[in-house]
Structures are given as C-alpha cells and as structure tokens.
C-alpha cells in the first residue's frame, strides 16, 4: 500500500502503544486543520485506538470514534511526520478493516461496497459502458480489448464514467495514438481497482476486484500497464503482486510513461505562455513516491513558468477527495479543497495541473467556488494542449 520503506508497521495493538502522542502529525493533517478538535488529530485518534485495541480492559468502540476514523483522507501526511516512524496510513486502513469486520462500518462505506459489488465500478452505470468515452475518438473500436498489445491503459472508474474526467482518458488516447504506441484497454472487463473497498475496510472484497483485473491482464498477455488514476496506480503497484504471482507486468503511472516519451523525443511540445503549478496527488506522491516525472513534463514545455505550491512533494496538502471522505463527510472534504485552492491562488498560476482525476474534480469545484481565474487540468491534457 505504500512505497515508504522507512515507515514501520507491526500490529495495530503495538503501533498504538508505540505512538508517543507527540503531535508532530497534527499540523499537517488536513482534517484536523478543518475540524480543529483534538479528537480529529492523528495522535488523538491513535490514542483512542490504543484504549480500544491495546488495553486489557478495552474501551468501547463508539460512534464518535468511528466517525473520526472515517474523517480521514488517507493522505499519509501524518506518516510523513511521525517521530516514531509509524506507517500511520497503514494504521488507518487497519482500523477501518477492524471496524468493518465488527459490522460497524459507516453507512457511506456500506453504500460504496454494495454498489461496487453490484456494478463493478463506483457509479451506477453498467460496467459494459466503460468505453463510452471513446466515442469522441476517430476510431473508438481501436480501444476495444486486444490481446498482445504493447500497453494496456487502465482507465479507472472516474475517467471512464464522469464526462469531465473523460477528457483525461481522451487526451491520453490521443497522445498515445499520436506517438504510435500499440495500446489497448480492458473495456468492460476492467473492474474498479479495489481502492475504495480497501479504504472502507472491506479488504476481502477488494481482493476479488484486484484478482479479476490481474487475471484479465494475464489473459490479454499484456506486460505493460499504465494508469492515469493515482489510486488505481497505487493498487496495481503495491497490491497486485500477490495475484501476479511472478507474471511480469511493468506498471507505470501515465506521468512516468509520458515523461519518458517526452525524453525520447516521441512528443513534440509547442510553446505555451502560462504560469503552471502542480498539485501532488497523495496516492501518487507521498504514497507512491512519484514526484519528479510530473515536474519534468511541465518543465519540458517551452515557455511555461513552473511555480511550486507552498506545500509540495512530500509535504503536499491533500485535495480533500481521498480516503472515501466525501462518502461520509462531504463538507469537510470541501473545506479541505478550499484550503488547497487558497494555496493555488497564492502562486499566481493560470493553470493548476495534477495527475489524479479525483484531485482534479475536487480542485475544480473549489476553484469554481472561489471564483479563481485558474484552469484545472490533468498533465495529459496539458501535454495535449502543448502538442496542438
């Protein structure tokens, strides 16, 4: 679930005791910054978890506790700061798993699960309609699943079903076509990556999704997979290994893949007179360790002036859209994205790019609410614009 090699995790019972309650995790926690009560700090939540799971006379699992545990974007900023090197993000996932196993998962999580088990994607649309977005391409049928292609583009639920996010999928398809890459998709056989289930604590359910996707990739005899969704990428990179079982599959986020294409001279980028800033998606940056490729892409576009957000790379501030927070507390999620929008405003950028469709949705909404003169784009869209 994480690339963090220097972060440690034994068991929930032990790690909750190891937590020193020092509070280093406090200042950068986006949820605490919005809610403000000590019970919303990572140290406060772990302290309660200790009373429940690490003591001989355990405290009861209350609704208040479950609410606070679900009020988390799983952004991993707490892990980054932890003075005792606890992989706190893993601890949150463990806690959510325990809560789900007790049958006490929040209603919002149950709804996510029920829907996913029924539809295999995060929407209520038929999963066979996953390639509807391709109808805007010249040759939509070219993206139907095809065995033996060099590359499979794992589109992700958000890009497949939400019209605004579909522009990302379209941009990627156009770029790959322009660069004459032999690529395909999994079509209706692509299921949700499983990330929303992992984040809700339904780990066992997530496994059937991961297993299905891996089996389909094997059937297609594909050995390179690219994902434009940071969360899908994270699951493919860190959770699919068990099911790949030795099958050789190179997994790239689209930013890595496209940055390499630019280096190899496969894409010709024209001048753009724009000030661009970059929002690091938590699942791509902190939780997967990819910081440089997106910046290399931006800096490779002639004329673009790149400015960093005040919180960037490892210290990046979450957009508010992670960890299924919207399903249980949309208001807090929205307030977090407003914090990020303020940082974007402070840069003076005309474009904010990201590499996660969920982040882009959250930021678009916050920027619209704040009436900021800033365009929100995916890196693939920026590249496509530079190519034109």
């Amino acid at each position, binding site marked *: 679930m994480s690339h963090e090699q220097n972060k440690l995790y034994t068991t929930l019972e032990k790690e909750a005791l*190891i937590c020193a309650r020092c509070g280093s995790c406090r*200042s950068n926690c986006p949820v605490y910054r919005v809610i403000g009560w000590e*019970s919303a700090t990572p140290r406060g939540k772990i302290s309660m978890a200790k009373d429940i799971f690490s003591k001989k006379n355990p405290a009861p699992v209350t609704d208040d506790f479950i609410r606070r545990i679900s009020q988390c974007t799983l952004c991993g900023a707490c892990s980054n700061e932890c003075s005792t*090197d606890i992989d706190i993000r893993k601890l949150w996932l463990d806690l959510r798993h325990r809560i789900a196993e007790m049958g006490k998962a929040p209603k919002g999580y149950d709804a996510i699960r029920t829907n996913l088990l029924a539809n295999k994607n995060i929407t209520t649309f038929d999963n066979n309609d996953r390639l509807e977005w391709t109808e805007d391409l010249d040759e939509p049928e070219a993206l139907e699943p095809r065995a033996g292609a060099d590359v499979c583009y794992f589109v992700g639920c958000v890009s497949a079903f939400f019209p605004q996010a579909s522009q990302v999928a379209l941009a990627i398809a156009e770029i790959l076509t322009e660069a004459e890459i032999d690529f395909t998709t999994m079509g209706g056989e692509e299921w949700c990556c499983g990330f929303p289930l992992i984040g809700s604590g339904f780990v066992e359910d997530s496994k059937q999704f991961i297993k299905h996707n891996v089996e389909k990739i094997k059937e297609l005899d594909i050995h390179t997979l690219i994902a434009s969704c940071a969360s899908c990428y994270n699951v493919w990179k860190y959770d699919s290994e068990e099911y790949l079982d030795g099958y050789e599959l190179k997994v790239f986020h689209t930013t890595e893949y496209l940055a390499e294409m630019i280096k190899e001279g496969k894409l010709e980028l024209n001048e753009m007179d724009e000030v661009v800033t970059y929002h690091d998606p938590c699942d791509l940056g902190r939780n997967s360790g990819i910081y440089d490729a997106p910046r290399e892409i931006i800096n490779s576009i002639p004329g673009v002036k790149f400015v960093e957000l005040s919180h960037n790379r490892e210290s990046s501030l979450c957009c508010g859209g992670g960890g299924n927070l919207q399903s249980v507390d949309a208001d807090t999620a929205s307030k977090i994205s407003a914090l990020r929008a303020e940082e974007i405003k402070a840069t003076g950028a005309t474009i904010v790019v990201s590499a996660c469709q969920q982040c882009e949705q959250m930021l678009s909404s916050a920027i619209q609410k704040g009436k900021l003169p800033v365009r929100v784009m995916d890196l693939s869209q920026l590249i496509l614009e530079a190519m034109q």
Partner: protein
Amino acid sequence: MSNEMLLEIAEKFGDRATLSEFERSLYSRDLAPVPALLVNPLFKTLPDIVVRPSNTEEVAEIMKFAYRNNIPVTPRAGASTVYFNSVPTKGGILMDLNLLTGVVELDEKSMTVTVNTATTWSELDEYLNSRGLAPKSFPSSAPVATIGGWFCMMGYGIGSMKYGSLLSQVRSIEVVLPDGAVKKVTRETTPALDWFAASEGTLGVITKLEVEVRKLNNMKHYLLHLSDANKMLDTMKALIGAEVIPYNVHFTDQECLKAMHALGFTLADLTEGCVVGVDYEGSDEELQQARNIIENLSGADKIANPVSEETAEMEWEEKFKALRLKRGGPSVLGAEVWLPIKNLPEYLEDVQKMSTGYNLGLFSYGHVVTPEYASVMTTFYADETKTIKYIINLSLVKKIHDIGYRYGGCPYGVGLWNSPMVGRIHKSLELSELRQRKKSMDSKGIMNPGKVYRSPFMLNPFNYGLGMNVLAGVRKVLGKGW
C-alpha cells in the same frame, strides 16, 4: 461549573465550544501515559468545557468570565510536554489556543517577527526560510511545539548554545491576565517578560510574541565518536570554548547508541563509546573555521574520531525523531534533567550503576544548551499495559532525578508531576518570589492551578519521596526480570 455557566460559554462560542465528553476526554492527557488508577483519585483532569477562541478579544472574554466566576482555566496549544503542564487538575475551562496561529508582522529592519501564540516552530521556520531568515533557536519538538508554549516552558533547545534562551530573544509579548485585562509586556514593564518565561501558563494567556530572528545561513554538521564519557566531556568543552560558537551540541551515550542500533536506527553502525554531534551555522568563513576546529579535534592521534559527514547530515535531517527509541518499548519512561555538563561523566556513571542495580537499560541523550548546562534525557522501557508494574516503574523516574540532583541538576520543567521537586528547581528565596508573583497576578488561583509553585497535598515532597522510595525498593527486589 454550574450548568448555567457551561451553557453561557457554549452558546457564546457556538461550534468552537464543546461539552461533549468524547471531545473533552482528549484534553485530559498529554504525552505521558499515566494510569487512570493514579490520576483519577487525585485530580479532575477532564475539563468541564473546551473552548477554542480565535483572537485576543475572545481569550480576554473567557478570562473575564472565569475570573468573575472563579473557574479554573487551563491554556493549551501543542500539548507536547509530559508533566501534565497543559492538562487540567481541577476541571474548569480548557482553552485550546490552536486557532491563534500565523505571522502577524515581520520587521526585517529590527529583525523581529510577531507571531500568534500557537504558531508552531516548524511553521515559523518555513515562513522565515522562504524570506531568507530563520528562528534563532527552536525546540526538538518543533513540528508541534508552539512559540507561546515553548516560551512558557524554559525555552532551551537547538540553537540556544549560540543564541541563548528564548527569553533572551523575545522582545515583547501580548498577554491576557487572569482578570481578562490585555497587556503588552516587555523587559521594562511590571510585570516584566521574565515573569512569564517558564511560567507554564500560570500567570496569564500569552496571545502574541515578538521574537528576534536571524539571517538564514549555510550549515555544517559533524559527528564525533568518543571512547568514553570523559572524552565526550573534553570534546564538548573544546567545542564550546572554541572561537566559533556552535549552533547546537548534542550527545548520545553508549546505551542509547546500542538501543538505537538494536532498532535499526544506526549511527554509522556504532555501538560502543559515545557520540557528540555539533552543528554550525554562519558565514562561509565561520564554517571554514568550524571545519578547522573539528579537524584539530579529530584524526588518528586525537581523542575524537569523526563519523562521515553524510551521516552527520542525516542526523541533522532527523533531529525531530529522537522518540524513535520508543519503538523498543512499547512505553518509555524517563527524566529530563538540567545538568551542569562538568558533571556529565559522573552522572552517566551513576546512571549505569542504577541500570545494573535495577537490571534495566537506561539510555541517555541530550543537548548542551548553554556553556555550562545540558538538558539530559535519561529513559528506560516500560509497559503501560501492565498497570501495577508500570506504576512501580514510575518510581525510577525519581531515582534518575535523584542522580541528577546529586550532581547539581534538577528537573527541566515542572508541570504537575515534577511539582514535588520544585524545591530542587528553585532556591527557597526564588520560590518565595515566584509564589509572590503568582499571588499578585492571580489572587484567585484560577490560571492553570496545581502546577509550578507547589505540589498538591498528596504529592507533597514527603509523601512523594516516601512513596517513590518504597516503590523503588519493591522494584529492586521484585522487578529484576521486568
């Protein structure tokens, strides 16, 4: 507090006040996991209400209300201490100051910055660094410790060796007094600035501070390996007495090196001897002079062996991670001792005798914060899930302080748990003066009661000494295998 009073505040502050027991319970603890069995019979640590004021006026409003109604008020921000400094002892109002953050004004001419009290040191550092400036010093808990909080403690840490205590760097503060009056306090006013330094929130609520800053300079970091504590002391003295004043000098004893090594947090694979770390900041010329100092101290025929500069750099980068030791726990108990460095070898020798006597590992590390004094942390592993054994182990904290006291040391910080030893921290006359100040400023005794000046009855020095010594005796006889 009566229901009417609680409702009055709750109504006034709306969603920035809470009566929820769930929320309040989180404010009845700090870093120290002290068993409820010990705490609950003696103190009312659960506040009646928690309020989050967002500006000085609101702080004053709360204080006026509390003063009028004789309600205890406990101010709290980062709450990164271990002595219940910001945990209530008599319920009342818990004032969570964490909305009072951010820089108010930067004056580059006078090289000062005015900040709201709950701004963390890391936040201030980030703000200043982006403008080519830096705080003169900061605590080793900078990511959570606040400017106001550290001033309310003793304010010695990283950078104090070169720039002095935080008190010496603060030009003025804005403080809300117990009766709700707002006052700007400087060195010239009465009360003066030094009244509030280390007062632990017992004289008023500090809301703003004007702090000196420095130019952001390049730094160089060195680690020196010494064969024993006496050579460590000689090295420290040489570093402190050299023409370039170090920014920071810190040390790790052999047992601490071993413990860190066992956990995989190794300093160049060292498990023997001691390590002194020294950090310099300044002009290129100063940094070159510093390099010469280090080269003169180290080398084949000298007492100190340098560890690679990459390791020293990494050690600096990880300066806020001392609590990693806790991974060997699950719990850690210990004492922070303000100790004359000339007595450090003897102190460490006695600590090791204690280690043998009680059959437990005692690990020491610390920062040299003035030319004469170090803040030394001596810790040991414990298990808070085994309540009785854990309570008995608490007695060893006093035993460590006893060693420190033998060598001219005293507890660093008072709060509640060190209050039985307040007579060791202050001379009798000083203590009388402090108590007089408290009386004159807080005649009703509502500001953070139970801390700093005298111990609560059950923890009076006699009871405390007797109780701890008995428990330590039990520990010695029965606890060898714990």
